């Protein structure tokens, strides 16, 4: 049985925690939301969920793993809801992918291409790539996504193959979302 260690954060500490890891939340919202307003809504919802779940943090795991788990749950829920409402959605505009509020984030061509390729993936695949790119090992990814290490390895290899094709100039193929891919 897993022992939960409460973080017992007060409001100020929590705000500071969000401030420290807002880049992470930004990357998640950027991957799942095309519209900046949607990104704000999703980020707010992520912050609200983190606040509600602050007592459930297990200190054996990295704080970023915990934030990722909640942020991805919120973002994926939003993404699926949006897909149901907009079945004929278009691929994201590359410019939308790099907008950061009033300032335009200078994104290297490589990263721009990567973002476009990531956008062709399904909801769970996106989550997997984000976690992998941010340096989480298979065990942490498996924990966040609620699956096994071997499943993570298999899926990651498949995704790497897809992204290789996309990144080397092959036509990006949109992956239909596999809603129970990892759970």
């Amino acid at each position: 049985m897993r022992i939960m260690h409460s973080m017992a954060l007060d409001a100020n500490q929590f705000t500071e925690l969000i401030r420290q890891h807002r880049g992470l939340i930004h990357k998640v919202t950027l991957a799942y939301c095309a519209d900046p307003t949607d990104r704000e809504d999703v980020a707010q919802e992520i912050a609200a969920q983190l606040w509600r779940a602050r007592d459930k943090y297990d200190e054996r795991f990295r704080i970023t793993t915990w934030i990722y788990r909640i942020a991805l749950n919120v973002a994926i829920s939003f993404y699926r809801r949006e897909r149901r409402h907009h079945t004929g959605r278009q691929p994201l505009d590359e410019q939308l992918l790099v907008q950061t509020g009033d300032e335009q984030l200078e994104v290297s061509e490589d990263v721009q291409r990567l973002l476009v390729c990531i956008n062709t993936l399904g909801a769970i695949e996106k989550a997997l790539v984000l976690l992998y790119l941010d340096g989480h090992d298979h065990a942490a990814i498996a924990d966040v996504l609620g699956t096994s290490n071997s499943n993570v390895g298999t899926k990651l290899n498949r995704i790497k193959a897809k992204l290789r094709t996309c990144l080397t100039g092959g036509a990006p193929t949109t992956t239909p979302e596999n809603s129970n891919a990892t759970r």
Partner: protein
Amino acid sequence: MQLDDMLTAWATHGEKIDRLLDVNEHLLRDVTTRKVRSALLPHLAWRTFEVAVGIAVSILSGTVLSQHLDNVLYVTVAGSVFLFAVFLTITTAMLIVRALQLDHGGRVADVQHQVAKLKRAEFHAFKWALLGGVVLWLPALLVLAEALLGSESTTHRGHTHAIDSQLLAHVPLPWLLANIAFGLVALAIGQFWAKKHVDTKLRSPWGQRLLDHVSGRQLRAISRHIDELSAFSNEASAR
């Protein structure tokens, strides 16, 4: 090109995002701090004027009091006016000190907390000025008129009356006491009502609107600016 080749580029991308969000927050904080300071100036100027008026009223009522220390009516009435004026002056001065102590460079949540406390303090000062005013407006008027007019003449219902410097002594005592009694009843009811229906609900949307109205336009503007900064700090991840 493979996904593994992108790890460094992605890490750099993450650092850029963090840097950009920091810069945006820094710029917004600068702009907000300037707005807060400029909104605070008229607020402080008005409160300073109130303190000056309070000091003047304290001196005038204190002068009348000191001239009639042997008269129970004067000691009671002018003494009450004097104490009330001193109380309001000190309360207003404390509001100024509290406004000056706003830590513009502090954490946004702390500044928000300080502004909220300042607004609540403004509300309580307003409440006591209003309730105390109901009790003491007539005595204060008489004491100040006596202090300012001295033995000048005044016109009442078409008749010119010469009044000497002891204006308060000429007021019918029952009438004065009735006014004070009415004021005390109004104060008690007002305080009871405020405690039951207002003080406990100051955190509700209705209470916040009341605080906004009572604390004035400048503090309202300050709250708005700080809230904007707070919204950015909390939502910057989404921008």
